[in-house]
């Protein structure tokens, strides 16, 4: 797998508390998708695994599907069910 730059991952709310961080930089692999980057995050922070079925994702501030490709320099946000208002 060729390394092709990095992706910034943002964690919020319960995810940030459980991981103890709000922001990661991960090396980006060829063919990376939202789901694959998410799997890398969960491998690093197994305590996030139970939240995965509830997550949505935002790539560069737009909601994105798991199979969306992740380009170098992108920002991927893991979005728990929102509860603003």
């Amino acid at each position, binding site marked *: 797998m060729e390394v092709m730059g990095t992706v910034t991952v943002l964690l919020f709310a319960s995810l940030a508390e459980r991981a103890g961080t709000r922001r990661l930089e991960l090396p980006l692999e060829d063919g990376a998708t939202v789901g694959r980057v998410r799997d890398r995050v969960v491998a690093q922070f197994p305590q996030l695994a139970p939240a995965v079925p509830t*997550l*949505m994702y*935002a790539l560069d*501030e*737009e909601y994105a599907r798991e199979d*969306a490709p992740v380009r170098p320099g992108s920002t991927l946000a893991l979005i728990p*069910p929102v*509860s*603003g*208002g």
Partner: protein
Amino acid sequence: MLIRVTEAPISADEAAQAVASPAAGAINVFLGVVRNTNLGRAVSHLVYDAYPSMAEKEMRAIAEEAKARFGLEDCAILHRTGRLEIGETSLVVAVSCGHRRESYEAGLWVVNEVKKRVPVWKKEVWEDGEEWIEGPESLGMQQAPASMQR
């Protein structure tokens, strides 16, 4: 179009003034306020987290959609983050338009959309614990509309 995610207090007057227009006969302002109970449990205070840049982007999209859908003159959405005590205002939504009925319909629509899709989260803090709320109103608990996927 006033759109803001902020740690500073937010007010009805600021939002109402922001949407004022000579053609507007009706302004509807909604305030989401921290209650002292939720689901029967006493709340001490709330803590709001947000993804501010994306939250503002979503709020702007909601405001634009509301303007088109309801023929609004203008729309303002303000969301506060950080620690909020009982009685403090977490959300202000203001809409202006010609007549009152649309102002109520549009205002409620905007508030519902904010609660569904703006990346903001609240933690409830009780006397004996705390928990991040993962709301049943969130799109994460629903079918995401096609327009929000790519």
